[in-house]
Structure formats: C-alpha cells, structure tokens
C-alpha cells in the first residue's frame, strides 16, 4: 500500500516538469531593461529596493529583480556571471576597495556621462567619491549611506539603571555599562559574529583613537601607529567592552541582540543604522523608547559606508542605455530620499530635503552634509583580503585571552598583506 503511494509520488514528481512561462511586462520591446543583482531580500530592505524598481519603471525602464540573500553570495554570483559571460545589467556592491580590482581589470563600464550631467562631484561626500572613482572614472552609482557604528540604547534600561544622560566619553560609557550590570541587565547587547566584532572595533577605534589614528591604522596601515600606545589603549578598551556581553552572545544574529535592547533586557548595542528597522517593527520610536548616538564623543568621526551599483562592461548599446538610466535614476534626489526612508539609511546626496526622515537619520544626514566628521568605513580602506585578516585577528582577540601586544602584531601582519 505504502509502496504504491510512494511510487505514485515519485511518478508525480518525475512527470511534473512543465515549463512555466513568466508573464512579461507590458512594455515596448526596446525599453531599457535592467537586471539588478542585490542582497536586499526581506522586510524593510525589500520595500526599499522596491522604490528603486518603481522609480526605474517610472523612468520608462523595465526592472528585472535578482535578489540574492547575503552580500557575499550576491557578490560572488555577480562576479561569476561576469566571468561566465552572462553579466547582469547592474550589481550591488559595497563602496569598497573590492570593485577597484574589477574596474582595473576592465570588467566595469564607467558612468562618467551621468556623473558629469548630474554633478556628482558637487553633491556626494568625499569618501563616497573616492570609493567609486578609479583612475579618474566613475564606476559605480551610490544608492545610500550606511553608518555601521551607531550606538543604540534602551531608555527603559537606562532608567532602570539610573543613568540620566547619554554617555559623552568612553569612561562615561563604561560607567553606564557598570550601572546596567548592577541593575541586573545585560550591559552590552552583542552578536558574536566576526563581522560584528569587527564593527565594534571600528567604533572603538574611531571614538577612542580619533580620526587621525583611525586613518593612520586603516588607510595608511602604518606600522608605528599600530604599535603605538594609543592603539594599544584602543585594543584594551575594545576588549574591555567584551566583558559586558552576556554568555549567549557568540554566534548570535545582530537582530537578536537588538531584540534584547528592544525588550529592555539589555542596555546598549553598537550596530549600523539598519537596526532601526527592528525598533520600528516593534513599534518603538527614536527618542521615545530608544536613543541613538552617531558616536560617543561630540566630535567623534562619522563612518561612511555606501551601497553602490556597479555596471558590468558590455557592448550592447541597449544594455548601456539601461545602465545609464539606472545610474541616473538611483542617484536622483527623490529616489534617494524614498530609498533612505525605507532602508533606514541616509541619502548620499547632500541636496536632499531630509525633514521626512526619522531623528536618527536626520542627524546622520546632517553629519554627511557637514563633512568635517566623515570618515571612510573599514571596507572602503582595506582590500577584502586585509579586512578579512583583520577580522580574524579581532575576533580571536575578542573571544580569547590573547595578550594585547600579540594582537598588535597580529593586526600589523594582517594589514601588511
């Protein structure tokens, strides 16, 4: 009896291979058609990317969506498809050193024409311009700016611990963390994955080390700076933060850490501005249930990390047209604002009216516009290889008992590659 059921099932599976056809959109055949690979797959991300798609359609194009979760997977698919001779029209990348290689290999098309027409040099912040310009040409269209090192805290937890105002220095931060612990709370909500360990390090380096040390270590990869006592202090403070996380931290996803802050079980989390989506989903509002700080010190550097579309080189004039249209659409003020609203990011352009953004994003936008505190994030400064090696060194330090001198040497070795 069961055997028959099984054979029926197998037969059904084997026979069920009809060729489903996809409904094509009712557009003229020569409309610009852009297939875009990106890793914005769910919730607020998907809503954000939808504004891009809508804007592209409104501009007369056809948006073909290729969402692939996970930045590494999405990037490797885009990369493999270029190698395989079947590239997408555009692909999301981080504004990073990574696509410099691709540009130098001649695999990417420049968008100088759009950049000139739209005056990118006037409206984009310097770190972004630097990241997308290779050999004098623009190879990417920035979509939005994320800052990975925001500091989020639960007002309820602060109240319970008797903390009256936002910490203004790292000493105050440690004091606040101590009080949170004394109140029986998890002081620092942290997801123990290497990219989050790395992210917290960026925050400490920027806030404790300051702009100068940050650039000397990460941009110039200066051995003396890495060996310096100042950098040593950065590392010690970094490791000290680790003593404030709970036992369940290793391997935790960032949003589960955010959930601890939302529920008031934890006090503080250092995380990118995308964390806002979690608060919003839990019906919490910035300034009411939770607070956000772009940095600890009033003049702390503000890290800039960008999402960028790159355009694989092609000879097909139709595709080139679609690429230029896309570059133009995603950098238009209106699209930038709509995207930022849903994504939780900040518009790249400094000429966007930001009053509709939430208080945290408004603060971010102000800092981007102001310019003086901007500083490139780690992946804009390091090759993926260096950044990976740095991550390995940091996560080993964070999770183990490696003496700080050795870690300084580890980091020097990681960045020397």
């Amino acid at each position, binding site marked *: 009896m069961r055997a028959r059921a099984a054979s029926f099932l197998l037969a059904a599976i084997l026979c069920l291979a009809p060729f489903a056809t996809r409904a094509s959109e009712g557009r003229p055949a020569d409309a610009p058609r852009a297939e875009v690979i990106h890793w914005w797959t769910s919730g607020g991300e998907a809503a954000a990317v939808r504004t891009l798609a809508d804007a592209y359609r409104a501009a007369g194009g056809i948006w073909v969506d290729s969402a692939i979760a996970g930045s590494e997977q999405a990037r490797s698919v885009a990369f493999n498809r270029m190698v395989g001779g079947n590239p997408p029209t555009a692909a999301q990348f981080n504004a990073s050193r*990574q696509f410099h290689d691709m540009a130098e290999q001649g695999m990417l098309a420049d968008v100088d024409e759009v950049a000139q027409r739209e005056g990118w040099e006037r409206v984009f912040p310097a770190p972004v311009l630097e990241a997308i310009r290779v050999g004098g040409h623009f190879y990417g269209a920035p979509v939005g700016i994320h800052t990975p090192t925001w500091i989020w805290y639960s007002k309820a937890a602060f109240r319970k611990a008797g903390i009256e105002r936002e910490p203004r220095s790292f000493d105050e931060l440690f004091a606040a963390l101590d009080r949170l612990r004394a109140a029986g709370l998890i002081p620092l909500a942290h997801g123990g994955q290497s990219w989050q360990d790395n992210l917290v390090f960026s925050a400490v380096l920027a806030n404790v080390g300051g702009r100068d040390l940050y650039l000397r270590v990460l941009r110039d990869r200066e051995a003396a700076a890495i060996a310096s006592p100042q950098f040593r202090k950065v590392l010690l403070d970094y490791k000290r933060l680790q003593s404030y996380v709970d036992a369940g931290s290793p391997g935790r996803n960032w949003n589960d850490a955010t959930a601890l802050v939302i529920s008031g079980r934890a006090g503080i989390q250092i995380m990118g501005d995308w964390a806002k989506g979690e608060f919003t989903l839990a019906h919490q509002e910035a300034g009411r249930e939770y607070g956000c700080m772009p940095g600890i010190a009033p003049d702390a550097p503000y890290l800039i990390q960008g999402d960028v579309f790159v355009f694989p080189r092609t000879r097909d004039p139709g595709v080139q047209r679609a690429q230029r249209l896309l570059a133009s659409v995603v950098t238009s003020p209106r699209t930038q604002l709509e995207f930022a609203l849903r994504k939780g990011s900040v518009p790249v352009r400094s000429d966007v009216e930001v009053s509709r953004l939430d208080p945290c994003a408004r603060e971010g936008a102000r800092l981007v516009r102001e310019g003086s505190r901007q500083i490139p994030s780690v992946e804009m400064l390091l090759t993926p290889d260096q950044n990976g090696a740095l991550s390995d060194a940091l996560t080993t330090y964070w*999770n183990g008992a490696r003496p700080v001198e050795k870690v300084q040497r580890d980091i020097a070795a990681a960045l020397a*590659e």
Partner: protein
Amino acid sequence: MTARAAWRRFAPHLALAPMLGVALVAYLGSTLWTLAVSFTPSRSFPVAGFAGLAAYERLFSNARWLLSLENLALYGLLFVAAALVLGVALALAVDRVARGASALRTIFLYPYAMSFIATGLVWQWLLNPGIGIQEAVRQWGVAGFVFDWIVDPDRVVYTLVLATAWQAAGLVMVIALAGLRNVDPEIRKAARLDGIPAWRTTVSIVLPMIGPALATALLLLLASTVKLYDAVVAMTQGGPGTASEVPAKFIMDHLFGRANIALASAGSIVLLLTVAALLAPVMIARAHGRSRLGGR
C-alpha cells in the same frame, strides 16, 4: 562481422566517454587549474604570472588556516566515530525490534534528507544556552544545568559533531542494517548453543561480519568530513572567534568574499594533498587485498 566486432569492442569505451570527460575535464582539470592558480599572484581574478610559493608561505603562517586544519582533524575523528557508533547501535537496536522498525528507521533517517541550510538555525537555537536546551532543562527545575558548548571556544567543535552526527547516523544505520541482513541467523543460534552471551556475539562475530558494509559508510563519512562547510556556516559561522573554522570555509571565504584566489587555491591543494595522503594507503591496501584474494 569485423565492423560489428569492432563496434562491440568500442561501445564500452564510448559509453564511458562521459565519465572520462567528467573525470578529466571537471575533476582533474579543476584540480590542475587550482594548482596553477596557487602559484600566481591572483587576487580577485586569476591572473598570469608566477609568485612561487608565496601563497603557501602565507597559508602556513596563517593562524586561522592552521587552526582550521586542527579543527578538521579533531572534528573528523569525533564525527566519524560518533556517526559510526550511533549508527551501528541504532541498527542493532532497530534490528531486534519486532514492531515499528519501519517507523523508527524513518525517524533516524529523515535528517539525512534535510540540508543544513534548513536545520542549521534550529541547531543554533537548541544549543544556545539562553534559549535552547540549557534553558529548557533549567526551567524544568535543574537549576545548575549547563550546556553551553556552542559559546565555548574549547568545545564548540563538539556541537558540530553533534549536529552532523545527527544528520549522518541514519545513513550509517541503514547501511549497517543492510549488512546485518546478510548475516546468517544461524550464526547467532550457534553462538547461543555455545553459551556465548549475546553482546559478545555481537561484538566479536556480527560486527566483523558487517565490516565491509561499514567500510562503505566510512568512505561516505570521510568524504563529508572533508567537505564540512554548510553546518559551520549555518551554526557557528566559524565562531566563537575562529574556534570552529574549517578548511572548506577558509577556502570559500578567500575565493569570493576576501578575493584572494591564489590563497584559496593553495588551501585547496593542501587540503587535497592531505586527503590523498590519508586515503592512498587505504585505497592501495584495498586494491592489493582484492587482487590477493583473486576477486573478480
């Protein structure tokens, strides 16, 4: 007739052409290509040029790679042992069950049908001390219960063993059951008449008899050991820190995310050589044993 005879002679070779193509082009070709790339200064892209053993030097001065190899050795030993012992124990137990054996087999086998993309998250939860088994047992009243291997750098490898043995033990069980089926029941009867305790019969007589079956299982387990990747990514992402990193993940990370193809290729070659060094004696011994026994 000669044409037909020639065709007869030729046909098997023609039929094996796809296998030849796959073996030479896909497997051997990929390996040689990887070997070649490992000597270049390639980063994001494979480029020509000769960098000598630079990638290998860097590989063996890389703490994470060395740790990965160490982890793989420890993991492999424990995983193979756990899956074999659990699988054989299940087979022996299921073999004696009169009713419900089929249901039990299915229960033990189903994990093999699921990928870690699907089950990794659940294992992560179950092992998480805050929300998983530890917490559940504590809520049932065992206050001091501790089960936090997944956050302990010294023990996190055991959790990989636990989850992957969960997945693979069913297959071992099936293979062992198949072996048990071919064991003549008269052997057990004879042993009983000799007054040998049942467990003794099992250990000294039955288990050696299903040895060849277990050898096949061992081969499959070893292959999946080397390829260990999905479970790590889904459960620990190599953490805490780098405590559960494995070679396949190191290779994958450097191949794409970290854009260092030369280093990834060097890692692949070292991994392959290690496997070959471990397998060659086994293979040669088997081939030798077979020819000595005059097998067909």
